[in-house]
């Protein structure tokens, strides 16, 4: 009964905020509302109780994304409320198949709009001892989805007693992403070697996949793909493969604003995986003053001054101060 009251209050508050911001007429706000004024939505809520209940409560019991508030969000966006942004990886990620296995590569810059949020983040995620996955898109989404599938693969390994296969990871990822209809913004390059051989796949946020001998994803994918298209050939050796991947990532780092900092490489072959974190550091901090930096007073120009009292000065009214 409690949350029932809360939900009503909540909706009334939301509408009040929109009203204040946009000075709209109450009647126009809720197309679903009756002709009577908004302060009595009680009847409407009662009918919708079974659906709205879950939205107002804590996490739904089944887990997963709750679409209950999407209608409200759409209404708010329509009325002009700006949706909050999220941190994206604005990335260059690549993968290629060489004669003994696969090589994956990624840059290490994470961006939040125009700001570099992390200068050396890890975009190559562990899925299984023989399978790794590079992630582009929303950082939280790539982390969460790769962690989840990695966990599922571990349980599957225990149940079957066998090494995980790349197609298993692929299918788990694509079914998850498809069921969220593209709302999980994760674009992945998945590579590994299993009993059936070396495999390389790309996975798109809506759940489609491709199987390729070489692949690039992210904002720097065009720069990286141009390197691959001109220099890739079948049967590359390990050194050639690593060099080509590094060149492609560097192309992304230097020509795309969303990618930068260092090159991470991961080489997967039958029975052995090497994760070469920061394989190349083409963007070192070149000038660091050994004396340190000191900023003396007077170096910064003061444009204006405003003083706000934190403790309000209380004026004592007439009469004895001891009187109540």
């Amino acid at each position, binding site marked *: 009964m409690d949350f029932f009251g809360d939900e009503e209050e909540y909706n009334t508050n939301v509408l009040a905020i929109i009203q204040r911001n946009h000075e709209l007429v109450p009647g126009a706000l809720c197309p679903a509302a009756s002709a009577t004024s908004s302060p009595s939505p009680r009847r409407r809520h009662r009918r919708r109780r079974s659906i709205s209940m879950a939205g107002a409560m804590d996490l739904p019991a089944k887990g997963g994304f709750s679409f209950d508030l999407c209608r409200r969000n759409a209404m708010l966006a329509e009325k002009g409320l700006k949706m909050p942004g999220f941190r994206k990886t604005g990335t260059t990620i690549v993968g290629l198949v060489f004669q003994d296995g696969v090589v994956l590569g990624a840059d290490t810059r994470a961006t939040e709009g125009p700001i570099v949020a992390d200068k050396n983040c890890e975009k190559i995620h562990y899925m299984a001892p023989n399978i790794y996955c590079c992630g582009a898109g929303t950082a939280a989404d790539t982390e969460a989805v790769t*962690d*989840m599938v990695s*966990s599922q693969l*571990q*349980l599957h390994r*225990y*149940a079957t007693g066998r090494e995980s296969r790349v197609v298993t990871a692929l299918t788990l990822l694509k079914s998850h992403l498809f069921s969220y209809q593209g709302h999980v913004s994760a674009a992945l390059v998945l590579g590994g070697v299993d009993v059936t051989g070396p495999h390389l796949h790309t996975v798109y946020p809506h759940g489609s996949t491709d199987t390729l001998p070489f692949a690039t994803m992210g904002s720097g994918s065009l720069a990286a793909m141009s390197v691959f298209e001109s220099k890739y050939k079948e049967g590359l050796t390990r050194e050639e493969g690593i060099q080509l991947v590094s060149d492609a990532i560097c192309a992304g780092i230097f020509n795309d604003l969303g990618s930068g900092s260092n090159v991470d490489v991961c080489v997967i072959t039958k029975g052995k995986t090497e994760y070469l974190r920061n394989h190349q550091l083409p963007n070192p901090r070149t000038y660091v003053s050994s004396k340190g930096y000191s900023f003396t007073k007077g170096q910064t120009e003061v444009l204006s001054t405003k003083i706000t009292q934190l403790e309000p000065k209380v004026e004592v009214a007439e009469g004895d101060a001891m009187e109540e």
Partner: protein
Amino acid sequence: MGDSQYSFSLTTFSPSGKLVQIEHALTAVGSGQTSLGIKAANGVVIATEKKLPSILVDETSVQKIQTLTPNIGVVYSGMGPDFRVLVRKSRKQAQQYYRLYKETIPVTQLVRETAAVMQEFTQSGGVRPFGVSLLIAGYDDNGPQLYQVDPSGSYFSWKASAMGKNVSNAKTFLEKRYTEDMELDDAIHTTILTLKEGYEGQISANNIEIGIIRSDREFKVLSPSEIKDFLEEVE
């Protein structure tokens, strides 16, 4: 037995304060094949008899000792199918713990969660208790550990323990032979001798299973050839 009219319903206490169904579950465990475990100074060993109902059964398809996480293993006495369900649940719980805390689950936590599952089945409608007792062996930051979990959901930490058919003889034998500073290899020999004590028939590398975990924290089930080596050392 005045308790008999209370013995069919799990969720009803008998006048003597017992849940008779749990007693029956313990009886089921007590008629299962013997299993035992020993905690040494530098590791843990668990073992069980692997008597198959007929010589036609393919013994390579049966594995009674299972891995729950890379550093925790488990063996049972009682009903095999119940064991499989518990193993599946425990593995999932270990994964969920890792997803939540990004830390590999400590042995005590996994034991607690498994015990909680077993307890649930003693207090719900329409279910029966699990007919297994588990011996969970693990090695984590608190060193080597050995726990027994009963169908009621109670758990105990042991230095050495046995369960199943031959429990009293095995425990007496272990009490005599156990020393605090035992090394893992000695513990394995003691285990084999204890199993031999109660074994009807000839013990061999194919009709016992042994699982060990050393300070490298990797739980492994010994292969028949490795067991053979230990058997020869004991003889």
